């Protein structure tokens, strides 16, 4: 019987695999392959988590003086709560409480219903408006420079969020998503992502979903570093934040 070169190669392989020495070398190769997968593919996820823990812990420590000043200013302005914990939808739809410095008046949710007609976001899923009357004086300043988002380092440390990832939506917004838009929940939410770096709040909902999915498609440790570096000038210049 004539065997093709490929069949001969396969036969030689299985002949080799039936010997003790052959099995040892093949097992060694398997160990290397598994290590290579962990190192090349799985390593990125591990590094991302390590970066999250180190950066969030360092940020919480180093920014503690700013936390103190902002907390005092918020308390002095209207005597209300310093932090605002809002239920958000995280990875694979899991609910968690996202922490922020309170930048709105204490009864902001009750006032929202009266302001829905003035929603400036296209598509109607997300509520955003410039010159929102519910935002306090201190709130306007801390929102412009994204200082209100800093307590989210605590969420990152807890593993509910990551430094880089799609912004976590509120459950009411998610309820209006179609099946395709829900795919943005397939990544751990983060502080910053493509659209925060690009145009921040100026991008419409469809654009945000597309950019979030583009991030999920290309998610890697080095992309996270790149996006973090790009976020710094975007935050300092206050692009698109209101």
């Amino acid at each position, binding site marked *: 019987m004539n065997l093709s070169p*490929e069949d001969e190669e*396969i036969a030689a*392989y*299985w002949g080799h*695999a039936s010997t003790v020495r052959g*099995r040892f070398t*093949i*097992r060694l*190769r*398997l*160990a290397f*392959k*598994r290590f290579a*997968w962990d190192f*090349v*593919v*799985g390593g*990125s996820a591990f590094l991302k988590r390590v970066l999250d823990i180190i950066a969030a812990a360092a940020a919480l420590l180093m920014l503690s003086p700013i936390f103190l000043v902002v907390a005092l200013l918020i308390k002095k302005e209207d005597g209300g709560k310093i932090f605002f914990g809002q239920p958000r*939808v995280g990875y*694979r*739809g*899991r*609910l968690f409480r996202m922490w922020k410095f309170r930048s709105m008046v204490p009864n902001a949710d009750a006032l929202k219903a009266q302001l829905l007609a003035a929603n400036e976001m296209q598509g109607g899923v997300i509520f955003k408006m410039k010159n929102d009357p519910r935002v306090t004086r201190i709130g306007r300043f801390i929102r412009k420079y994204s200082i209100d988002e800093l307590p989210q380092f605590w969420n990152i440390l807890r593993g509910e969020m990551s430094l880089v990832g799609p912004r976590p939506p509120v*459950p009411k917004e*998610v*309820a209006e*998503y*179609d*099946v*395709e*838009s*829900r*795919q943005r*929940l*397939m990544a751990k939410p983060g502080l910053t992502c493509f659209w925060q770096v690009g145009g921040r709040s100026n991008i419409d909902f469809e654009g945000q*979903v*597309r950019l979030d*999915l583009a991030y*999920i*498609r*290309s*998610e*890697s440790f080095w992309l996270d570093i790149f996006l973090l570096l790009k976020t710094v000038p975007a935050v300092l210049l206050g692009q698109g934040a209101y």
Partner: protein
Amino acid sequence: METSAVLELLAPDYGRFDTIWRHPLPFVLWPIGPKSLLAHWMDEAVRRSVSRVVIYAPDRPAEIRQHLEGGHYWSKAVEIIPVAREGISAPNAIRLDGLPWSSVPEPVSSAEGLLQRWHDLQAQWLEARQSKDVAIDVEREPQGWVGPGAIIHPNAEMRPPYWIGSRAIIGAKCRIGPMAIIHPGCLLDTRVEVKRAIVLPDTYLGQNTRLHEAAAQGNVLIDIKRACRVDVPESFILSSRHLRENKPSLAARVSALAGWIMLAPAASLWPGQKWAEQSCLSGLETITLYTGTKGPLVLRRWPWLKALSAGKLRWFGPLPRSEKQVHALPEDLAQRIAEHLPGFFSWADTQGCYGPEQEDEWIHAAFQLLHDDGSVHRLLRRKVFALAFTIPPIAP
């Protein structure tokens, strides 16, 4: 668009037909493409804009409840109603026998039929996939989708339709498709052929292997055509990509070897020590273990440390037992015991049962296997020193 306030679904009770794969989850949670059959129906609930989903579940409702995590992903209130038998409590519910967009097939009536149904649903899902503007997967070529982070060797031959999940690696000279579904995290070595087949998550397929009309999960091969299952013992042919699955880690083996060396004088010089020989199952092979009759547990089981360092035992697992003792157990438990490596310390030890011959030991073994996700191991770790120096009242 069809609109209704409540979507009623009936999960068919196919547990009795699942005698080949013996999947830990009910049929509705078996993967069809990247998500479970039930998740496809939950997507349908979003499309139909229903406010609530009611699922009648005669088979493992707790698993279904856990899988849906409250339905938050779909923003739907989900109610899971355990029912004794399908059909009696839900006359208006849709039977989850097929995908939402396909016609409802006849109910399954045999073990072969169940596997074939699952395989058919995969093909239906892959054929019905359409190019979408907003999607995580990339359409590499018409009907050929690749998930994020997947790596395909340039020499691999790809024949659509196929779907490659995220972070899967396809090696050189592989032939993938048609009708191939490779789940996330899979590792396909050189010259692997996957045709009308499914490779489930985190599975390693060794060099020069062919998978036709079959499914592979870890070291389990399910032949759909012949309706049979093969547990492949050689990791280089078919195995889970996770090194540690059902195998002690390198650290566990090194620590066991260190323990074996350090305890050797005390164990061998313990007054009146006698070693009883027993033949035990360790995964797919039979090993011989010696157990002492005197002293604390760690010294009685001192020879087990050598077996642990050789990768035949784990630190934590059900107690080792002979083939006869395994077969005396209820069928489900016997299967689970046979699939797992026994442990040096077991949950039964904490309950005062130090050997499988004790009457209640199998209940603790069943509990440990049901919670073999680390929760029992964490509890055991806390008690490890107390356990090690326990002096069993009877010779284990």
